[in-house]
């Protein structure tokens, strides 16, 4: 069996007595798209925070291939190849979208240069390609505050993709987006990630998104994986339909 890209073993953490991760075990393979579903407060976002070093677990380990990243900072984990997109897009609001992407590219290709301009040809070319990939090239000169929520979400994901990660974690990539936009956005994201051979782990509440785009689904409840399988199996599971989807 090939080594998983991400392996999480027996992860535990609690906040003021409330258990957010209770012996979570997860593996993600190369190029795999995995969705996490579950009720509010189940610990889904906390799990992403644990994987990216934002929250330190009280027990358990997180491995990126053979590297134990459990105690590393978000910065170190990012540099090792796990990028993150947020439920509320995290952008630099004083910069244009294009400059946001340039900063992300510089972060990967050579940030600590005090006298070389950020806006250089090689970076511009790459930024342009990335923005075209997700259909944001037309709004590159705008600031994030001038864009729709859907565009901001895409821009947030472009920043993460500019790092050329091995794994992208996304927290509700289509939340706050109109139902007209969300499938277009998800289609764009998935196409771009597949093209770059990036694996993805995404938290999602929209079961149609999960059904269409996930290779595998993890059902999260009370800080652990209650069930996992293909979207077809999971979304037809009576327990999941009653307790997560809300359909009996």
């Amino acid at each position, binding site marked *: 069996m090939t080594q998983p890209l991400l392996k999480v073993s027996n992860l535990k953490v609690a906040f003021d007595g409330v258990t957010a991760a209770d012996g979570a075990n997860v593996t993600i393979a190369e190029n795999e798209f995995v969705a996490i579903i579950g009720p509010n407060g189940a610990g889904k976002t906390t799990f992403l925070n644990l994987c*990216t070093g934002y929250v330190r677990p009280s027990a358990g380990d997180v491995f990126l291939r053979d590297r134990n990243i459990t105690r590393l*900072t*978000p*910065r*170190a984990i*990012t*540099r090792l190849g796990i*990028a*993150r997109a947020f439920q509320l897009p*995290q*952008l*630099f*609001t*004083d*910069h244009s979208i294009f*400059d946001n992407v*340039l*900063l*992300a590219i*510089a*972060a*990967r290709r*050579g*940030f*600590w*240069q*005090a*006298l*070389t*301009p*950020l*806006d250089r040809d090689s970076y511009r070319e790459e930024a342009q390609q990335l923005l075209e990939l997700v259909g944001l090239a037309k709004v590159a000169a705008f600031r994030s505050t001038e864009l729709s929520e859907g565009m901001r979400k895409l821009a947030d994901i472009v*920043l*993460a993709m500019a*790092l050329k990660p091995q794994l992208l974690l996304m927290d509700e990539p289509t939340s706050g987006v109109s139902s007209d936009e969300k499938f277009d956005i998800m289609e764009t994201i998935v196409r771009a990630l597949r093209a770059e051979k990036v694996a993805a782990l995404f938290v999602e509440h929209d079961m149609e998104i999960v059904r269409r785009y996930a290779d595998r689904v993890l059902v999260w409840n009370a800080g652990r994986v209650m069930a996992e399988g293909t979207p077809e199996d999971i979304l037809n599971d009576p327990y999941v339909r009653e307790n997560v989807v809300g359909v009996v």
Partner: protein
Amino acid sequence: MRILPTLLFLAIVAALPIAVPWLQFVFTLALAHGLAALGVALLLRAGLISLGHATYYALGAYAAAFLSRSVGVTDFFVLIAGGILVAAAAGVLIGLFMVRYRSIFFGMLNLAVSMILFAFLAKFYGLTGGTDGIRVSTPTVFGAAFDRKTFGDVLFYSLLVIIALVTFGVTRYLRSPMGEALSAVHTNEVRLEYLGISVNRVLLSAYTLSAALAGLGGAIGGIAIGHVVPEMAYWTGSGHLVLVAVLGGIGGVLGPLIGSVFLELVHTLAAGYASDVWNLIVGVTLLFVIFFLPQGLYGLPARLFGRKEAAK
């Protein structure tokens, strides 16, 4: 081209003292303060207000004075290099601690450090000359000795060249990834960390540069006056630098320099022609700028130009 505003500013500052000679010394001190205020403005881009940058202004001034008095250095450029190095070294050491703090804590901790330095300079008489300060002899320039008046001319025009080089260098820095990241720190530290960039390292670089600029200003100020005193580290000096940075505006590198020259002019003219109410005049002028030019004086040309464009 952004070099044009710099050249225009330097040309005006260079030309005015030809018509009004006493302005030369006023402008020399204003530009020295302006360099320090430029350092403060760098940190303002990251949303950090230093209420203690007089620390580095004083360190630059005292470093030049010590080099002159105790080491026997006489060359002007070596003295200011010493001022820059000492201030930058202090900036690295103090910055390692400061960059962990934000908002009021950052401001107050810088203020505290400046007051410690002020007390040190005032109390350690044997070393620092106490409240009497230290006299700085008129330096030589590449081996050439000048009388005080001629040196004033050499200093002034050398300072204009230094300003040109500094504005060029700082502009390059602000357009670099490290410089662009400064305003990114202000808007989203979380995203910077999730891009794999150390926010503290970005801030430490800027803090060190800002300390070096303040040290450069301090060394020039100390040499221009020919005397350094503990009041250079006093908190009102730090407040003055913040005021100048905000007045001039942080939108461009020239802003703090313009702000400093403007404030010094208003101050000098108000004190000369209306000595009873000069504080009132300075205060009203500041209120006017703050209310009507929120981007600072540097934003004035852009605003006027923008209005003309809109009118068309």
